[in-house]
């Protein structure tokens, strides 16, 4: 699957939105000064994605189990369409993600939305991961060898 540069950017922001906590997104959305009107092309829908693994981590694929995912598609007043696919069952999360996805595709809004929503969400995610990593890091074993005898 070849992915264009533009798609690569979109992959990133959609992933950031998908993994965000709904209330974090809501707060940042509230702070956004210019909000567009939109209508839903596909109303928020709760469903599942089957999560797959690989035998031995690298081998044949198998179905591990499902996870809940909510999706939504919107069209802004200016005609831009956006899609939201988010983890969990939060419909508002999926709808706002779709709106933000549409805004991010609009060159006129992109910078403000990126600075106001995407980057802060990304930082929150990284901070949470970092906080877990420094606690795990403290449990790393430092082996030392006790030498007995003189030679």
């Amino acid at each position, binding site marked *: *699957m070849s*992915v264009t540069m533009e*798609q690569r950017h*979109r*992959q990133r922001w*959609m*992933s950031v939105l*998908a*993994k965000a906590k709904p209330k974090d997104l809501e707060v940042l959305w509230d702070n956004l000064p210019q909000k567009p009107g939109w209508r839903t092309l596909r109303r928020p*829908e*709760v*469903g*599942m*994605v*089957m*999560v*797959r*693994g*690989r*035998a*031995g*981590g*690298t*081998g*044949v*694929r*198998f*179905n*591990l*189990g*499902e*996870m*809940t*995912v909510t*999706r939504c*598609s919107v069209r802004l007043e200016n005609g831009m369409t956006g*899609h939201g*696919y*988010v*983890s*969990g*069952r939060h419909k508002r999360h999926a709808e706002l993600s779709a709106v933000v996805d549409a805004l991010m595709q609009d060159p006129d809004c992109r910078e403000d939305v990126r600075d106001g929503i995407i980057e802060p969400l990304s930082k929150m995610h990284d901070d949470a*991961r970092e906080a*877990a*990593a*420094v*606690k*795990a*890091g*403290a*449990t*790393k*074993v430092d*082996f030392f060898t006790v030498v007995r005898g003189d030679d």
Partner: protein
Amino acid sequence: MYVAVKGGEKAIENSQRLLADERRGDRHVNEVTLQQIDGQLSLAVDRVMTEGSLYDRELAALAVKQARGDLIEAVFLLRAYRTTLPRFGASEPIDTGRMAIRRRISATYKDLPGGQILGASFDYTHRLLDFTLAADGERPEGELSDHVIDNEMPRVVELLDRDGMMEAELPADDEPVADLTRDSIQFPAGRDARLQALARGDEGFLLALGYSNQRGFGNTHPFAGEIRVGEVAVEFVPEELGFAIEVAEITVTECQMINQFQGSATQPPQFTRGYGLTFGYCERKAMAMSLVDRSLRASELGEDVNAPVQDQEFVLYHADNVEASGFVQHLKLPHYIDFQSELVIIRRIREQIERNRGAHQEAAE
């Protein structure tokens, strides 16, 4: 003639009401919240998600609460719920090699790249009841460190892979992936169907089977090559986009069991692998799963199949605790007519025996 007997509606209604009453318990005690269950009974939530085969912490916490802590009942609730949701598709296979590690240990190499990271584990506790937990009071936070954790730690099995000592696990992405939620299992079952069944399977059942294997019923000489716990991204390709996005980050536990293999006519002696993977932090389950996975590979590796843990039908038909629970518990349903007929049959046989005995005695006299 078929006679339907009705009755008991009122009793059933009151039984359900009593269940809700007892679930709530003493009204002077605060009701437990889903956040508390998720945060403080997190391993119960992890087990219910794994065996319920649905990753959703809030729903699993609700199931635990509704089931009054009966985890198999909670698994049943989650399984029932998932049938109400549409499926958008399947994810790309998760890449556990790119896990954000929270625990990672190996029993086969002391000094491995990335190091041994103990994480939060019961392993080093003394299993003494901690009465300070019975009292109120805040706990200190985990120690912080400036150790940088490498998020792309090599897998231990790959270290052996390089010199051919370890069998390779190669993808076969042209093959379809078996799905037990859609098609019933066929025998002999492929590795994909087996791993799915084991991932959903009951921890206690798999633990006992793994233990039986270690004690000699089809021993596979296992070593815990690597156990890792942490977060991985779930990538999904929405059809309207045509490219993958990370829809979530989930916690998983992975166990790579390394096992001796004597070799065969076509393969040199080398190490073989058993694999365990669960949602959340279910280390005992992942280990048991990897032991059973390896044991179920006996026939493909040309080993004798003579122990229960090596028997596909025995293991895979009995691993699911929702099915097992349903069949065992159906015995509680009214069997009044069945039982009456058995009663009649046994009476008749006894009468027959009595008559025969009388006839023999008469003949003897």
